[in-house]
């Protein structure tokens, strides 16, 4: 009754001739392989369902009207459910930003690189500290602007200058400038 002791290895159960074993082996392996392929394919919807859904992706562009923002003022808008800072820089602030040698900065960028040509007074950045994602102060009236007159993140003390570049504190990068364009003189479309 050797044949009934059974074994976990299907190959052992197949026929005795060499040819047969190989052919039968192949079918068993192919069947298990097909099950594996099916299982892996099933993972695609199970995993991708967690990615942003269509309605979330559709809301990924925002239009903002700038006509009411006076020089020296800033507003907070919402872009992709995150705060967005839009600041109308004064001539003095632009001057301060340009006075710094960009090469000496932690994240070297000039104000020019961070704004649109001819619109250097409009500084559009995410209001998300590049350290750990807190919202920096300085956009609203009366908030602390930090040692460099731009933004200040109170969570871990990151100071940003008037071009929203990191100058002091733990943040590794300048405040992110999202993709945007001026659709008219006073309207920007972000995203």
């Amino acid at each position, binding site marked *: 009754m050797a044949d009934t002791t059974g074994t976990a290895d299907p190959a052992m159960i197949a026929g005795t001739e060499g040819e047969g074993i190989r052919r039968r082996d192949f079918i068993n392996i192919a069947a298990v392989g097909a099950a594996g392929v099916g299982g892996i394919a099933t993972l695609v*919807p199970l995993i991708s369902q967690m990615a942003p859904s*269509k309605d979330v992706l559709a809301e990924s562009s925002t239009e903002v009207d700038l006509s009411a923002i006076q020089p020296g003022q800033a507003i907070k808008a919402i872009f992709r459910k995150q705060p967005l800072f839009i600041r109308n820089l004064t001539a003095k602030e632009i001057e301060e930003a340009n006075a710094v040698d960009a090469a000496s900065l932690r994240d070297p960028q000039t104000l020019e690189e961070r704004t649109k040509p001819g619109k250097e007074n409009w500084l559009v950045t995410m209001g998300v500290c590049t350290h750990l994602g807190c919202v920096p102060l300085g956009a609203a009236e009366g908030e602390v602007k930090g040692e460099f007159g731009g933004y200040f993140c109170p969570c871990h003390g990151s100071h940003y200058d008037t071009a929203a570049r990191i100058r002091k504190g733990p943040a590794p990068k300048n405040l992110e400038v999202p993709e945007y364009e001026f659709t008219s003189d006073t309207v920007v479309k972000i995203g």
Partner: protein
Amino acid sequence: MSFPWANHYTPSHPVMKWMDEKLPLPRLVYNAVGAGYPVPRNLNYMWNFGVLAGFCLMLQIVTGVILAMHYAANAGVAFASTEHIMRDVNWGWMLRYAHANGASAFFVVVYLHIFRGFYFGSYKAPREMIWLLGVVIFLLMMATAFMGYVLPWGQMSFWGAKVITGLFGAIPVVGEPIQQWLLGGFAPDNAALNRFFSLHFLLPFVIAGVVVLHIWALHIPGSSNPTGVEVKSESDTVPFHPYYTAKDGFGLGVFLLIYCAFLFFMPNQLGHPDNYIPANPLSTPAHIVPEWYFWPFYAILRAFTFDIFFIPAKLMGVLAMFAAILVWFFLPWLDNSPVRSGHYRPMFKKFFWFGLIPTMAVLFYCGGAPAEEPYVMLSQIATAYYFLHFLVVLPLVALMEKPKPLPFSITEAVLGSDDEAKLAAKS
């Protein structure tokens, strides 16, 4: 317990040896559904449905957990969040249809599993505990499915919740307070929806726990088989793996083909159009029906239109509906025939094929039909036979029937002869 000839788990790789000493999980699997579990060699395709039911439970848990990531259990937005899943969530339509049709598939498989048990006497000693746990699983499934159907908060969801909790209102004196307690209000609303969601999430894991007990209890006497003759020797069995893993793999393939045909090409076939109308407490659908898997019991509920002495018709219907399932608990003691398999029980077989099966078909049909004649009258006759079958026919048949001769062993049934049978005959 296991048969003495069962294969022993002998890890060869050092890592597996280490694992076996610390946490012998591979050994458990090996002995439960691996090469270490000897199974009768003559199981037919009706024995595929246990594994398929387990698969369905996992399918429902996986898709359900995912749907819960996108669904909002609030009466104000539940319907809209379901549509959000269908329209905006990546593959959301597929996951929701997989879950909705998965419930139907689960019940198809479990009904076949149960009726296999009815025919082959799987509920009989020494397997009563497996059977009792199985009935518990079935009851838990019904509760889970009912609460799940409420969640999309469509018209049928709402009115289903109202009617089913209304059943408890039939209980004398305490009925109404119980109904209000179940709903957390006077009609289904946020409170009910939220608790149904919570319990609908919890119960599948309770089911999974009872399934573990069900399988544990199965491994004490081992699997039954179509002859109903107990395993006598090694030649009667084969190891579960690879023999039945291969057969169950094939069964799973066939199952998935049918299931996916529904999922991709007729996903709403088994549902009701009214559930695509948002719940409206002020307007009852013309024809309230539960999901198809409740139809036999719904037919029994509606069969009682007549006050029996001091029992009002409504209460009688509720009693009968619960009794129709509870009677399964007593089955091992109602059917006292020493022979298990219907194959060798000529009288039982006739009542099964010409009594119980047509009765169930009628109950299924009438439960889904409107509460009109002739459906109500048909379901009354069917209900009468249903109870007659379990409570009167089975005990009497067991007394009166003369069973056919059983094969000496499973091996003899399969191969036509058994060396040991010859030896036994000589002595």
